């Protein structure tokens, strides 16, 4: 096991810069996730750690050892490829044994280790099968066993679940987590599925266009997104363009820019809001998660209670998604499916409350600001 | 049974100097070659290897191997081929012990080759389709329009026999006029009667035998051989006005790796006994004047030899054939059929 340090790494392919000035530290035994849209540089970073690419600039360290230019076969990382990359001409056993054979493990040891690894992934009865006779999920477990059996210091997983259907994904997710906890191995997990990232990771790095926007625990990333890209990439969010009116100890007063007469909102002054305003950030927005908004039938006492009208209702099973038009701004509100059917309907007049603690002032970095 | 031949150098002392192997290039085919291979090996215990291919191909091959000759002896080809090879410096001179028994025309003046057999060219016909009385008696009768589409001719460019016949037809007038035009006209008329040019002799035999055409021109020994050995319904007529008689010869290749053995073979295959076997079994007319007891078909046949200056053939032959190929042969012949 080892920690990984990525220091000031840049990677260019010809003229395209796939990764720019990346600094990351992944701790020993951590389950770390790279999250981001397609083409943002997740795979590139992972491959630099595995040794298939060499950074154009910068240093990659395992622990304190500079590994920047060590060839892949000397890195002792275990990688699970997106397509599993199982050797089609070998049995399950031989696939798993491959890394051990390379390491010239004696054949008695080898057998024990391979069977042990297969047991861990619950495939002990499949060792003589050809890999082509396995289902997608089983294949993935073989790939995992193959990577784990060599007892790598680092486990690298490149979107290992993206080919599977929803049910199998859930199962495999649990499996991977269980194995990672068992082996206590430093793991990097690449995905573009935010639910996956949030539910599995110790920490997450969110990428876009080769730049890492935020590193943090799932809750930090979700609840305190660093900017609008992170906020809107991770789950649904309502972003409201605002202007800051006044800053107080506890609260910040902002007005909604919606073309009509300004609507006043009170935002709780979290630690970083003040900084943002001091840094004179021009493009600011107030964000609130759909599930944080409360829908009230009648006006109640409290702050940030606005009148609105239901635009549409969509049923997603456990969650009902209600779009509410509030002063010409469309707010997405998620409520649990606990009401009776037909409780919300298009055209119904309601009040919404935006709890001040759930409102956050964040910088807008993307061109098409909300 | 060949021990009487004192010239062949079959004595024990000489034998010890001979190389243990010899390579022969020859168009004579498997039957002749295997026979002489066995006999020669019996006598000298020298390993004979042979490669049989067309005489023109042998010339080509000897030429490509000039820097690194593979063959020792070249046995069998019209004298014109040998003359060409001689001019290209591909042959080594050797005067055989039987040189006295060869007529003037049957050897190279400088002994680069000597003749082994003579091949008269004849008009051949299918004896099932035509009776002896009907067939043309001379070259010019072939031009009679009644033979239109009855004549099958072996494509001449790759065939020494056909080249000789066609060249002779031109030469008949050329020797007086020094102009091939009259000969070209003759060939043009022949072309008009010709049904098809066959790619190779087998095809020609097959077509004449099955009656697709009933006439051809070809070498006499082959016709006899087909008739006698292979049951083909063939007969031949020797043109009355005279016919070209090719001399087939033998030569030693310049730079041969086994010169001594080559000389032994050279002598061996033209010994009177050998000549007799060739005449009796393989229908070849010997060049040596001292061969006796020849079969009837040789002694009975009266051949009027056309008087030919082979040097002119060699000099002009290619040009004439090229002209024929490019200007006379009707392009639609093969398409028409």
């Amino acid at each position, binding site marked *: 096991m080892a920690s990984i340090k990525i220091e000031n790494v840049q990677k260019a392919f010809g003229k395209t810069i796939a990764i720019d000035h990346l600094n990351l530290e992944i701790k020993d035994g951590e389950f770390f996730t790279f999250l981001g849209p397609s083409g943002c540089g997740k795979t590139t970073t992972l491959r630099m750690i595995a*040794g298939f690419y060499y950074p154009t600039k910068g240093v990659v360290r395992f622990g304190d050892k500079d590994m920047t230019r060590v060839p892949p076969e000397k890195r002792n990382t275990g*990688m699970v490829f997106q397509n599993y990359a199982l*050797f089609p001409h070998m049995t399950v056993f031989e696939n798993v044994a491959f890394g051990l054979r*390379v390491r010239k493990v004696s054949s008695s040891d080898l057998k024990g280790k391979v069977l042990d690894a297969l047991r861990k992934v619950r495939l002990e009865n499949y060792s003589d099968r050809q890999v082509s006779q396995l289902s997608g999920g089983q294949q993935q477990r073989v790939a995992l066993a193959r990577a784990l059996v*060599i007892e790598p210091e680092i486990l690298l997983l490149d979107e290992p679940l993206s080919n599977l259907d929803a049910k199998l994904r859930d199962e495999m997710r649990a499996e991977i987590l269980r194995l990672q906890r068992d082996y206590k191995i430093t793991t990097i997990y690449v995905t573009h599925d935010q639910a996956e990232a949030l539910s599995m990771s110790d920490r997450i790095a969110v990428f876009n266009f080769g730049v890492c926007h935020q590193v943090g625990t799932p809750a930090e990333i979700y609840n305190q997104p660093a900017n609008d890209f992170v906020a809107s990439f991770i789950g649904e969010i309502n972003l409201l363009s605002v202007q800051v009116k006044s800053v107080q100890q506890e609260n910040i007063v902002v007005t909604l820019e919606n073309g009509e007469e300004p609507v006043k909102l009170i935002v709780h002054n979290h630690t970083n809001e003040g900084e943002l305003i001091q840094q004179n950030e021009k493009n600011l927005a107030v964000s609130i998660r759909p599930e944080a908004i409360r829908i009230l039938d009648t006006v109640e006492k409290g702050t940030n209670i606005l009148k609105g009208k239901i635009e549409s209702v969509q049923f997603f099973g456990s969650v009902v998604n209600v779009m509410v038009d509030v002063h010409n701004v469309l707010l997405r509100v998620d409520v649990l499916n606990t009401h009776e059917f037909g409780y919300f309907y298009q055209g119904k007049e309601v009040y919404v409350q935006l709890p001040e603690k759930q409102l956050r002032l964040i910088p807008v970095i993307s061109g098409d600001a909300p | 049974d060949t021990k009487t031949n004192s010239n062949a150098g079959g004595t024990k002392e000489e034998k010890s100097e001979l190389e243990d192997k010899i390579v022969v290039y020859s168009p004579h085919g498997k039957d002749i070659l295997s026979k002489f291979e066995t006999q020669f090996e019996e006598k000298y215990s020298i390993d004979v290897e042979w490669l049989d*291919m067309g005489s*023109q191909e042998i010339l080509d091959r000897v030429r490509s191997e000039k820097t690194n000759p593979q063959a020792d002896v070249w046995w069998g080809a019209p004298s014109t081929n040998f003359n060409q090879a001689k001019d290209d410096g591909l042959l080594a001179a050797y005067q055989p012990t039987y040189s006295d028994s060869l007529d003037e025309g049957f050897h190279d003046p400088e002994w680069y080759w000597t003749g082994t057999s003579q091949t008269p060219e004849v008009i051949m016909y299918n004896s099932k389709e035509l009776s002896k009385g009907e067939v043309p008696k001379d070259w010019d009768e072939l031009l009679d329009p009644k033979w239109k589409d009855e004549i099958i001719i072996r494509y001449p460019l790759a065939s020494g026999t056909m080249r000789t016949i066609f060249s002779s037809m031109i030469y008949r007038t050329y020797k007086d006029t020094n102009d091939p035009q009259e000969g070209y006209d003759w060939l043009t008329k022949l072309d008009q009667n010709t049904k098809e040019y066959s790619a190779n002799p087998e095809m020609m035999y097959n077509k004449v*035998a099955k009656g697709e055409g009933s006439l051809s021109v070809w070498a006499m020994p082959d016709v006899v051989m087909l008739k006698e050995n*292979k049951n083909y319904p063939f007969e031949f007529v020797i043109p009355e006005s005279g016919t070209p008689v090719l001399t087939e010869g033998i030569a030693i290749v310049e730079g041969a790796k086994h010169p001594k053995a080559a000389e032994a073979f050279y002598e061996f295959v033209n010994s009177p006994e050998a000549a007799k076997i060739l005449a009796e079994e393989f229908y070849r007319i010997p060049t040596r004047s001292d061969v006796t007891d020849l079969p009837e078909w040789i002694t009975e046949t009266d051949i009027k030899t056309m008087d030919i200056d082979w040097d002119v053939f060699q000099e002009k032959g290619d040009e004439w054939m090229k002209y024929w190929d490019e200007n006379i042969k009707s392009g639609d012949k093969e398409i028409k059929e």
Partner: protein
Amino acid sequence: MIKNRDTRLTIWLLIPVVLVLVAYVLYPSLRTFFESLQKDGSISFGNYQDFFVQESKTNLEALWNSVYISILSVLASALIGIPLAIIFNRYDFPGRSFFSTAAILPIVLPSLVGVMAFMFLYGESGLIPNAIKDLFGLDKVPFKIGGVSGILIVHAYTMYVYFYMTVSAAINKIDPSLEEAAYNLGANKFKVFWKVTFPLLTPAIVAASLLVFMISMASFSAPFLLAGGYRVLSLQIYFSKINGDMEIAATQSVILSIVSISFLLFMRWYQNRKDYRMASKGIGAHRSEVKNPLMKWVMVVTGIIGVLILLLPHFTILLLSLVPDGTWTFQTYPTVFNVENYRLLFEDPNIFKPLRNSLLMAVIATLANLVFGVIASYVLVKRKFIGKSFIDILVMIPWALPATVIGMNLIFAFNEPSVFSFGQILVGTFWILPLAYFVRHIPLVVRSTNAVLEQLDDSIEEAARNLGAKWFYTFRKVILPIIMPGVLSGTLLAFIESVGEFPTSVLLYTISNRPISIEIMNQLRMFNMGQAAAYGMIQITLIVIVLFISNKFFGIKAEKAL
């Protein structure tokens, strides 16, 4: 450092590939080109000028005939091969698998005897026309082949297999949902075929056309035996050489090569013009079951008749081999049958020498092809380097060059000592023929290997390295075993073609390496038709045994090679 290490590996792999290509493909071609520039002892383009301005236009005529025959051959082969491929791969009916295998049988027919068989079958005095004539009491035979039509029929018969093989492969890769989409949009069967299925076969058809065009440009046996005086360029080269006009032969070779290479480049361009890649994932084809019983029987009957026609030449050879020489001369049908020819053959103590030679040389050449093909293909597909497309073209050149030209090139290059032959003269030695076979089949093996390597995901190699395996270990234990079945099917085809190879053999054989095809030709030359046929049967049997063993025991299918 690893970067350098990988680059170094690429270079190490590239060196032998480039050396072989330069030594045995580029250098001989350049030698021929150089030879063609020689005229009367000086260097000029005089020979080319002669070629084109020559008064009688014979060369131009030959060139035109070659192109004309080749184009017609492509059309004829396509007309047979494509429908057969479609029937056998799209419809399920009893015996389908037998017929689809039988359809590749022409590749086991030795070219020389094959042509003779055609003459005996369909010539003016051939069995079929005469049988029809006698059956219906006609005055004349109803049809016959010969000349151009003969060449075309022989070409169509032997070369449709290339269309059959490539189109079969392609048709199985077409996503059936594309056709279903067309039906769903209201198109009828006819429309679906012409607007969707057929266009999607374009790459396969282009590849096959290319192959057939080049093979017919180079075709030797058929025009040699069938065409009488019909001029084609490959024969002209042969005759020029026989006549000793080496410069002319070289010039003709260069021009023939230029035509072939232009066609190659044209086809490549044509194919790349449009996109035919199907975006979908690999969903296997499902054959429509023929519901209509009438349709089913029509298919079955067509299949049986087709296969019979395909097998007729083979039967003819068998028949010929059983007829003693001299008993079938003027007779319309043979009357005597026995095994005399075989007896004669087997009495000859040297009978097995040509067989052994052919097998030995084919094995040597094919092994070399295998090793070279795998390395070259790996470098071309999986490595990046400058000048890749140049190497790519060099690899393809032996396909664009007619066999006669390859023979010529080798003669020009190796009838004097050179560095590439380690200071030896190769012409006249045993090694020249295996070399020629090797050169001829470079594209075949490299191409079929490319196909499997392209399908091999890079991540497989990366996975092995990630598990700690060095490159060579990875190559040996992972890449090679995976691609081997695909590679071997190409190699098998190369082997089969080597065993029966004629055009380069006739130019290059020597005493020590005389192959079967030459032996057959010599038998023919001595009009021992029966023994030639017997030899042909032995060759066919040999190839069928090899095909059978490799299919049965190793699961290698030659028909999958293209």
